[in-house]
């Protein structure tokens, strides 16, 4: 038998030779770095006169215009209208998309019936659907929320379905050996197994919701950020248009960050590259 004794090493000289392939620890508010750089370029371009203020107002003008819009109460009013539409569209579209993904993922007949139409819907651009939706539902809130709901439904369905189909069949086998009832099986195996897919779908869905909101609001609207921007276009107010664009951008960015936060919390069982 050989005895292996640990040779003492001076701590200062201990150095890991291992190449580190994983990214380092996450940066706090790292998601703001890219947008901040973008803002810096914009400000620099405006200050140096590279960007013509008639086509692209400088950031400070946008800020003052935003301040004026807030003071007059118009911005809040439009923002509220927009947020309500997005919220409603998500509130209907997300559960609906999840339900469809579950039915289609768990039953062959469900898949046969559901999957095709969703793929077709996916192939049709939102703008192409608008004339028909306006004919059917008018130009009111119902139409706008419907547009968003339909848009949200697709990524939720696609990613949840994909996540669900990707669940390791060994877990299904395990569920069979411990005699899980169908309801428990869905709760303990299917839903958590599909959750990473669902949350990815959620990120797409939130973005999609804001995109479809613009489409819905630029056409025949009397409230909302899109309407505010369209009105500004007729008066040639670039700064107001920019306020709208920045606002859309910020809303998208923060809703994505919110979903990612939920994702990190919900998937704490995972040990992955992202850490």
């Amino acid at each position: 038998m050989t005895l292996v004794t640990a040779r003492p090493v001076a701590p200062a000289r201990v150095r890991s030779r291992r190449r580190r392939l994983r990214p380092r620890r996450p940066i706090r508010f790292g998601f703001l770095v890219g947008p901040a750089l973008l803002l810096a370029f914009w400000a620099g371009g405006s200050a140096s006169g590279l960007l013509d203020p008639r086509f692209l107002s400088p950031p400070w003008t946008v800020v003052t215009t935003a301040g004026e819009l807030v003071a007059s109460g118009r911005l809040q009013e439009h923002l509220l209208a927009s947020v309500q539409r997005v919220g409603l569209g998500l509130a209907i579209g997300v559960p609906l998309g999840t339900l469809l993904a579950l039915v289609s993922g768990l039953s062959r007949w469900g898949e046969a019936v559901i999957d095709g139409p969703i793929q077709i819907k996916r192939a049709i651009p939102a703008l192409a659907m608008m004339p028909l939706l306006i004919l059917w539902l008018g130009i009111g809130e119902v139409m706008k929320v419907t547009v968003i709901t339909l848009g949200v439904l697709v990524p939720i369905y696609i990613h949840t379905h994909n996540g669900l189909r990707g669940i390791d069949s060994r877990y299904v086998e395990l569920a069979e050996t411990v005699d899980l009832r169908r309801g428990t099986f869905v709760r303990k195996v299917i839903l958590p197994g599909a959750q990473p897919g669902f949350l990815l779908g959620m990120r797409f869905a939130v973005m999609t919701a804001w995109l479809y909101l613009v489409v819905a609001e630029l056409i025949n609207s009397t409230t909302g950020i899109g309407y505010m921007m369209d009105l500004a276009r007729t008066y040639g107010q670039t700064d107001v248009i920019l306020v709208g664009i920045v606002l859309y951008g910020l809303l998208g960015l923060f809703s994505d960050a919110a979903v990612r936060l939920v994702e990190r919390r919900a998937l704490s069982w995972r040990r992955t590259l992202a850490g």
Partner: protein
Amino acid sequence: MATDVGRLTRVQGLTRRYGERLILDHLDLEIAPGEFVALLGRSGSGKSTLLRALAGLDDDVAGDGLVEVPAQVSVVFQDARLLPWQRVLDNVVLGLDGGERRGRESLAEVGLGGRERAWPSELSGGEQQRVALARSLVREPRLLLADEPFGALDALTRIKMHGLLRRLVERHRPAVLLVTHDVDEAIALADRVLVLDSGRIAAERRLGPGSTDIRTDLLLALGVTGEGA
């Protein structure tokens, strides 16, 4: 025996084929209540196929024959097969209504008391396999099917697991069918050792005091001779 109804494990004329290949060929097997049987066999000899038939996991495989198993059967797989998104205790009591207390006891039994709230990914391979053991034993099975449950563990952990399994089986008294390719493991644990070959039980040895040459015997039945033994 009337008392054995629903407790006996019996296989008669079991045939299983994949395509044209006959894997199990009119196989007969009986396991008494509380008996510990080890199943040896070369790789690809059909050990897992037999075990899956007993576990009722082979609806999609062609074949026929009679399979009679007790009402409560538990399976331990080669991989621990814990749901990564469920904490350890939830994995143990998966599908049991209100089994929390029994789950904790079961975890304590395999030496993992206090790790109830851990995620499976936070456990070592041996610990995960112990959780899998707890999960199968908390259901008080009358038949425990184990397909190379220690195959992925290192030699030292394996020996510890043998001791643990022996103690647990003594306490809970299920019949056990343990698939392994390790002759020494079979001898260390089982009352009876079977060798599967060409789709049938080709050799059978009952272990007891004075069964010294069994190791060579079994290795011979597995086609290993001379120095290799």
